[in-house]
């Protein structure tokens, strides 16, 4: 447990050192999407009886929790390939599960912080929604899933450049197709079936439904939790494999 806290505290310390840079960087993408899609394209648009801004903010919450939780992969990669800090963790008397837990917790923390920033930006834009327990549960499960995925990927890649490729192939398409900017049920049936395989689709639907005060689908939460757990176990195995 202490080993896990040490890994987590190190990541928080790094985050603290780069606080203003990180905060500004976390705000850039959501702000651009808000300006371009919220104020620009969606100014007079209504989706399912709500303004497009109200529709967009929960989508951005889901997307940002995904990208920021996944961004821990870059931090791990820099520590592994550039600063070689990973060796310090591997030589310490801590179990691999403690290392994975510490990194995943750091990913979730980053994600929660970015979500808080989006909610603040939303508030400034006059969007106030309901942020109850189910909302935060969806955010945490989504962050857990993508932080676990990040640890897996960070262990599997052989260089920092490979990491960028994975982001381009997995995260960016998901960000645009996972129900962030448009309702998935407006797509053709065949596309809906495909998009329903994306975890972000379920996260976006759950976050959106809960923030609208509706009851989200239980199966989305189960799916996010199950997939997150599977990736967490996989991350543990990947750390074991990364030794050589």
């Amino acid at each position, binding site marked *: 447990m*202490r*080993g896990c806290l040490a890994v987590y505290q*190190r990541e928080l*310390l790094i985050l603290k*050192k*780069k606080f203003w840079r990180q905060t500004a960087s976390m705000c850039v993408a959501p702000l651009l999407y808000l300006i371009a899609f919220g104020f620009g394209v969606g100014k007079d648009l209504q989706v399912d009886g709500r303004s497009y801004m109200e529709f967009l903010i929960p989508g951005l919450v889901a997307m940002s929790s995904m990208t920021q939780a996944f961004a821990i992969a870059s931090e791990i990669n820099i520590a592994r390939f550039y*600063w070689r800090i990973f060796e310090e963790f591997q*030589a310490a008397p801590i179990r691999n599960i403690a290392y994975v837990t510490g990194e995943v917790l750091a990913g979730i923390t980053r994600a929660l912080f970015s979500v808080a920033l989006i909610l603040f930006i939303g508030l400034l834009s006059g969007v106030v929604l309901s942020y109850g327990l189910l909302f935060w549960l969806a955010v945490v499960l989504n962050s857990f899933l993508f932080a676990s995925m990040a640890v897996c990927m960070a262990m599997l890649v052989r260089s920092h450049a490979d990491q960028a490729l994975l982001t381009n192939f997995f995260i960016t398409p998901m960000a645009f197709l996972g129900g962030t900017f448009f309702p998935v049920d407006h797509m053709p049936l065949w596309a809906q079936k495909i998009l329903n395989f994306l975890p972000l689709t379920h996260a976006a639907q759950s976050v959106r439904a809960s923030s609208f005060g509706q009851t989200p689908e239980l199966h989305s939460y189960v799916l996010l939790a199950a997939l997150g757990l599977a990736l967490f176990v996989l991350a543990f195995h990947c750390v074991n494999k990364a030794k050589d």
Partner: protein
Amino acid sequence: MIRIEGLTKHFKKVQALKGIDLHVMEGELFAYLGPNGSGKTTTIRILTGLSKPTSGDAYLHGFHILRETLQAKRQCGLVPQSINLDHELTVYENLNIHGKLFQMPRRVRSERIEEMLHYVDIADRRSTPIKHLSGGMKRRVMIARALMHAPKILFLDEPTVGLDPKIRRRIWSLVKKIQQNGSTIFLTTHYIEEAEFLAQRVAFLDEGRIIALDKPQNLMDRLGKWAVDKIVEGEMETTYHASREGANAHILRQVGSLSVRRVNLEDVFISVTGKKVQP
């Protein structure tokens, strides 16, 4: 203190270690010498838990490195070849994180950090980010970090590589001091003079095998005390002699450019392998 039995390591088609047997005694400063790619770092990586052996056993202070991994790791401190400090963090923060990783209680940790900062003479830089330190200072921080949890065994993997001679001497003094305080030190190097100056025993490693193992003086004495170098058609030819008189007599019989010097460990390595230790 360190016991290695039949240790092998294969990387796909490359056999990095071909059966290492070794026993390093408590309080000993042991040098593991060999050219690049001979398996020095691989041995250290296995012993410190960074890599898994293909076969064989190793014990650190009685703890098996695979069956009692966590206990074995607690026995050792590691100073790896590459600088692996958190460059964004300060000297103090780097040591503090290490202390946390080794589950040291807060009070013990703070006291030990102060002690180590003074021990490696870097106390005035405690609040400096690592990125603002020189190469020699970074090495000293790494040594301080490796000693934070008071390990019984210290692994130094090429601790002076890339450092200028003055800083190198300073690190040597520090290593001597650590050993005099009772630690067992396992040092890898390809600097012959480093091993000669520091080590009580030396193992020569070549292509994954230990090819010679003894006290430096014993190894050198087997060749003789004096060496005469002669350049023949661009190649160095060396002969070894038990006495200076013998070396002088040999010189008188030769024609051309000759020089006489003391036998060193490099001579031993060349005589055993036919190649130089330096990469």
